């Protein structure tokens, strides 16, 4: 096993307490960040293989996926990719849904479909002795789906129902992407689909999309855990042996235009004591030069907002923010659920703090903490083997190098204060902000003017 390493120096000391109890021990220490260093190979036929060895537990996480290009789905087909990747688990040519589930069960596995904007994949975690059979079964499931008409209609109906049951904050978060980029862009299309787009999808659409995407030239397989890379390569080649070549060449990006106007939208939901807020800003694609600067800046801003809302006022359980950078562009998001009686104050606070951001000088400890927080979150995202396998596969889908995670650590460590300030000023600005609120219509209509963004557009969201 090889690991990338980085160390970040923390220089915090807090005052001890004059209570007669033992004083606080020193904790100015180096925090090691170990991130997986993947090996990447291109197989015959163009498929990509990503491996990461870790023998500490008798487990192997395996993911088998396909790259999706922005042009594979039209705005009217929003949700088609999610439907296809999940529907492959509803049966293969040789096995119906129950038998397929039993086949995975015999390996001790529960397959899961993951869908991103750049593609999708099936993933399982199994004991090492089942790894060869598992990758073969995953490849067969993806290669030879049944797509039975009845199962597809059932899957669509379940998807509509599941999306309708989303937590209001999750709903706000999903909608803010569309608010920022517009529904016609590949970045802004409702990722999970809507009741309208999903119900229009037919078996023909699903089969055609599957045929467009299926091919070894678009395939990615990743292994993480107790696996020998030589075996992993052999198993991957065997699993893809009967796959068609598929379309070759690098993926075509479809860079979405950023809308010229910002939006403030709302979904009326009664019976909530809180208003659920999602705030979005268009951002850069994954791997862009100022990505890390904005990540750290966003964390600085969100930490201060959370401190105000939770620790100072108690009007929210917390606020969080993240930068979701994708192959074709990115989105900076801040979410919070706030006591509806405090909505106006919260919105004023957000506007005021964004206006001050350009002149705000974070203290050295704040800056160090935000930088550490980013690096630590990178470690959290690859803490489990299935995360490691999935993240490795997604690096390929996003056209990022296999050592991207470790490169990024080095870039974060090299960030100067001016880099963070510049990226933050460029992206976290009121003029580029869109807001989505889910909650009581009266409360939102009455208090949203505090944003100074004009009247709220209420959306008729059927789910």
């Amino acid at each position, binding site marked *: *096993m090889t690991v990338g390493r980085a160390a*970040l120096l*923390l220089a*915090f000391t*807090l005052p001890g*307490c004059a*209570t007669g109890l*033992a004083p*606080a*021990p020193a*904790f100015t*220490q*180096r*925090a*090691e960040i*170990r991130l997986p260093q993947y090996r990447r190979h291109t197989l015959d036929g163009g498929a990509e293989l990503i491996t990461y060895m870790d*023998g*500490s537990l008798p*487990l192997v996480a395996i993911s088998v996926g396909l790259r999706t290009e922005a042009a594979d789905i039209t705005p009217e087909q929003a949700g088609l990719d999610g439907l296809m990747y999940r529907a492959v688990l509803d049966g293969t040519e040789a096995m119906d*849904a*129950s038998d*397929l*589930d*039993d086949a*995975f*069960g015999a390996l*001790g596995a*529960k397959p899961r479909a993951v869908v991103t904007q750049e593609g999708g994949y099936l993933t399982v*975690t199994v004991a090492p002795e089942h790894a060869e059979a598992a990758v073969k079964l995953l490849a067969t499931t993806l290669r030879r789906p049944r797509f039975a008409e*009845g*199962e597809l*209609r*059932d899957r669509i109906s*379940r998807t509509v*129902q599941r999306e*309708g*049951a*989303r*937590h209001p904050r999750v709903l706000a978060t999903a909608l803010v992407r569309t608010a920022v980029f517009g529904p016609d862009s590949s970045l802004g299309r409702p990722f999970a689909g809507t009741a309208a787009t999903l119900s229009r999808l037919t078996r023909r659409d699903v089969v055609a999309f599957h045929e467009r995407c299926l091919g070894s030239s678009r395939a990615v397989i990743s292994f993480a855990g107790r696996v020998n890379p030589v075996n992993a390569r052999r198993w991957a080649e065997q699993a893809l042996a009967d796959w068609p070549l598929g379309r070759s060449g690098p993926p075509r990006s479809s860079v979405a235009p950023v809308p010229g106007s910002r939006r403030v939208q709302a979904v*009326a*939901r*009664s*019976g*909530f*004591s*809180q208003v659920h807020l999602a705030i979005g800003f268009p951002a850069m694609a994954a791997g862009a030069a100022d990505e890390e600067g904005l990540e750290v800046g966003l964390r600085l801003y969100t930490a201060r907002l959370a401190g105000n809302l939770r*620790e*100072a006022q*108690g009007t*929210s*359980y917390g606020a969080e923010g993240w930068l979701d950078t994708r192959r074709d562009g990115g989105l900076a998001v801040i979410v919070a*659920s706030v*006591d509806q009686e405090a909505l106006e104050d919260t919105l004023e606070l957000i506007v005021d703090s964004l206006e001050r951001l350009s002149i705000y000088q974070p203290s050295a400890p704040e800056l160090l*903490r935000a930088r550490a927080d980013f690096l630590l979150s990178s470690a*959290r995202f690859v*803490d*489990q083997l*299935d995360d490691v396998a999935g993240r490795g596969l997604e690096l390929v889908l996003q056209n990022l190098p296999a050592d991207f995670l470790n490169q990024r650590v080095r870039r974060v460590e090299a960030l100067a204060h001016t880099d963070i300030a510049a990226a933050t000023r460029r992206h976290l600005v009121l003029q580029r902000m869109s807001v989505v609120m889910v909650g009581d*219509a009266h409360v939102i209509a009455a208090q949203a003017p505090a944003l100074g963004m004009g009247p709220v557009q209420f959306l008729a969201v*059927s789910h």
Partner: protein
Amino acid sequence: MIPLGLALLLFAPDATELFTLRASYTLKNGLRVALEPDLRQPWVTVLVAYEVGFLHDPPGRPGLAHLYEHLSFDGTDFDPYDVDAYLSAAAALEYNASTSLGTTEYHVTLPRENLALALWLESRRMQRDEQRRDARRLEVHRRVVRNEMWERFESATDRTPLSVLNALFPGSFPTAGTSLGPLAATDVLSSEDIRQLRLRHYRPDNATLVVVGNFRSGEARRLIDEYFAGIPRSDGPRPPISAPPALTAEAQVAHDVDHGQPAKLTLAWTTPPFLHEQDAVAGVAAELLAGGRGARLGRRLLGPGGGATEVRAVQRSDRPSSVFLVTVAARPGAARADLRAQVDATLDELGRGPIGQDELFRARARLRTSAQRTRQWRTLRAQRIADHMRVYGNLDRLDGEAARIEAVDGPAVSRFVRAFLVPNRRVIVWEQPRPAAAAAGAAR
């Protein structure tokens, strides 16, 4: 130079050996201590579990244990230390706390070099003085708790467990008997309530300290002695812990959910606690019922023509009682009575047996994988260790999970279903979507 831990991972034929150099002991003041090295990452996790939860809240004071969990991160007028400030400054990978039926636990994962700080902070939490509590901070925390409850339970997706818990353990939750709106119970909790709770429950002989991760055993023992051994044992007896009485008649709850949400049927039973021999049996039963599309409820209710769009069964292992849940999301138009009959028929079949060897093999295989996967989650691992210490006082049986799963056979599952998953001990919750017109009117 390759660090020792990394070298072991590279060259050890079976690195799971790294988990077995563990130790457990009890300090003179009654604090149970467990240490488990895990050298895979440069982190160390410290967890302290106190035997106080929702079920220990005094009559008329629901929510007290949970509110105190929040307050204990703050300083007081007398002692201004602030756990949040220290941990965020000390590069904590993750820190949090939770309150369940019978336990409040605090955990942090941070760089191995900061083990001393984590232990120091937890020793402070164990011996803090609540008499000088800042009234303004108390009010802020009340608001935060209120927002947490709203955030977790006001959405329809999370309301079911609340209904279930309120019905299974009446009066024990801060939202019992309310519409979730005022959370009046939290508002009446006073500084004196908080002081009494701390005195009764936050004491070394009512707690377990677990250290998991990358640390040197000798150093950990020395630090634990330094920070915890001097905390005096409490004079009074430990607060009693008893399982809540099981229901003797079926309880039924119905409520509306927002338009757009699916109708949902939930059946819940209190079942034996974590580490009871029946706990493993319950896990296998849940897997046989709803472990996937091929499981019994999956085959009966899912897919075209089935009455459900989703089925779940789970044994939520806890102490002093577990809860077994079966949840069925209804297809539009499916009748409650029909779904209930289908679940009952499936339970009846499982109770009568026989259970096929193939389906048992699959259920056990999935649970074995799951048991290995949970070893990756340091906090969950630490929680399990704390439970072992509470129940057995040592870690001798910690590696027995796989064996416990393997020992479960078909007749054992059938006996469990007949003994525990019976109509007169269950709560049935039916959630019905509010009619569209009413929802639209309310939302305007």
